[in-house]
């Protein structure tokens, strides 16, 4: 008996050490596998992020980072007195609040239009999707031409309908809405694809059963399709919102923030303060606020939709 027990004992012991060794080896492998990515992310994402927070409390010229001066909350005090900051914040939120529901609604409508067995459905899908793969710079330049107040395609079309010429990007009242219209056209196909995947995961027998009960297409849409898409809709709204808050390329290329700052956004403000006026500290403070807005939005969206 004692013999057996010793044998068992030693057996377990050597197993423990070999498992321990194996575990340590696996750990080392794990660390070495994540090392390249983690190092790169620390240097080019985490470090800049932390620097932005620190720089927000300082004053320095981008070209003279050695002459950095700690100024506490000065940038934030300045920022909350800056009319241009409020204007940029307002423009960013205005763009977001209009684009998100409109674009998502258009996308859902397009998804419903191509979610069927039509022979040409793939042609339609590619038509809706083609602006998505076209780069934003190309689209912005193209639409400057389309929006041309004198010889643009859109004004020519309006002219045929008997509507007078519109200034579009040249007018403080119309510039932002013109950018919104173009942005919806550009990105709706993207959300459409997500909705389409959602639509195709709804079980077919739900529709068959409701049709037997005498439900018409509209009732099916209201009582089956929309409720089944709930999670997808939340997802689409969230990513569209975060995307919209970052608005930069369109106003940079098309209007440079004008006319009369009507298209100046937070991202554009960061760029201009930081790189054109070299106010690195001030631009960092705006960056921090900008980041907090993005975090707040994603947090709020999650809470708001979970509670319902």
């Amino acid at each position, binding site marked *: 008996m004692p013999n057996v027990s010793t044998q068992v004992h030693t057996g377990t012991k050597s197993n423990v050490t070999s498992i321990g060794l194996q575990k340590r080896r696996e750990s080392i492998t794990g660390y070495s596998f994540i090392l390249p990515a983690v190092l790169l992310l620390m240097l080019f994402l985490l470090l800049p*992020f932390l620097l932005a927070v620190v720089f927000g409390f300082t004053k320095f010229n981008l070209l003279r980072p050695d002459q950095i001066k700690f100024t506490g909350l000065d940038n934030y005090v300045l920022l909350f007195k800056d009319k241009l900051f409020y204007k940029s914040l307002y423009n960013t939120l205005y763009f977001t609040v209009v684009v998100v529901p409109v674009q998502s609604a258009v996308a859902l409508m397009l998804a419903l239009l191509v979610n069927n067995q*039509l022979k040409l459905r793939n042609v339609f899908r590619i038509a809706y999707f083609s602006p998505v793969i076209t*780069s934003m710079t190309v689209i912005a330049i193209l639409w400057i031409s389309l929006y041309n107040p004198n010889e643009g395609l859109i004004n020519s079309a309006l*002219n045929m309908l008997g509507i007078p010429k519109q200034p579009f990007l040249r007018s403080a009242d119309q510039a932002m809405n013109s950018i919104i219209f173009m942005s919806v056209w550009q990105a709706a196909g993207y959300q459409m694809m997500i909705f389409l995947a959602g639509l195709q995961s709804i079980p077919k027998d739900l529709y068959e059963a409701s049709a037997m009960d005498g439900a018409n297409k509209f009732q099916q849409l209201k009582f089956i399709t929309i409720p089944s898409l709930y999670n997808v809709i939340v997802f689409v709204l969230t990513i569209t919102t975060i995307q919209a808050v970052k608005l*930069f390329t369109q106003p940079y290329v098309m209007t440079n923030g004008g006319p009369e700052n009507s298209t100046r956004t937070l*991202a554009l403000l960061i*760029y201009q303060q930081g790189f054109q006026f070299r106010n690195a500290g001030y631009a960092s403070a705006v*960056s921090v606020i900008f980041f907090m807005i*993005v975090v707040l939005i994603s947090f709020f969206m999650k809470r708001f939709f979970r509670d319902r």
Partner: protein
Amino acid sequence: MADRRIKIFIYGSNIIMSVLFIIPLLWMVVSSLKPESQIFADLGSIKSLLPTNITFDNYIKAFDRIPMLKYLFNSLFYVAVIGISGLGVNSICGYALAKLNFKGKGVVLTAIIALMIVPFESIVMPLYLVVNSLSWVNTWLALIVPFIANCFSIFMFRQFFMDIPNELLESAAIDGSSPMKTFLKIVVPLSGPVFTTVFILDFISHWGDFMWPILVTTGESLRNVQLGIQTFFTLPPIFYGQIMATLTFTTLPIVVIFLLLQKYYVQGITSTGIKG
């Protein structure tokens, strides 16, 4: 009867909507193939969307004025390098997070998910300072290295690798295969779709790079195609036909890549809803 009416309604709506959606891009391509005077003569009639008097003059003249081919090559080069090196770095990280056990794994995963939310716009200036202090401004390194590791890609790889059965990996380990060898010989061959998806998402998003190249490329030698067309657009004399030629030319490569890898791109969007 009702079904038939609905079908006609859906067809009709689709035709109207897709025409509206395609008009701007159609006008771009058609105008690039017309003499300048014809573009304006055709405005205000349906002819503006039809190729009349086809000519490649706009392309020839525009290419005389700016080195479009060089810009195109620059873009293809650095975007492909980001994409390919990203596949290596991110896939192996995603694999470790999916299939290996080590202390701190949870923290790393949480950090990567949290970092996904940091908008590029909010770190662009300090990132510029980091790159500047490495003396990388106006080098390929500035355009490439900061974007190789990508939280979204790591996360997508991880999600895909989670579904690979453990038995497969364990039996390879018992046969004496090292973890790296298991990854390269067993996991990678099974994971073609996720590699393609990550590559095309990365490629299309960096193909559109605009803000960053403005900052880190000062001369013409590294200018990408987006900056090229933007510069050309502001370079007098302005000819619409030539501008449309550069726009069309810039869009062609992405159309080719999209048509080749369409399935994977759409999968990427629908599985994660992520695009640059």
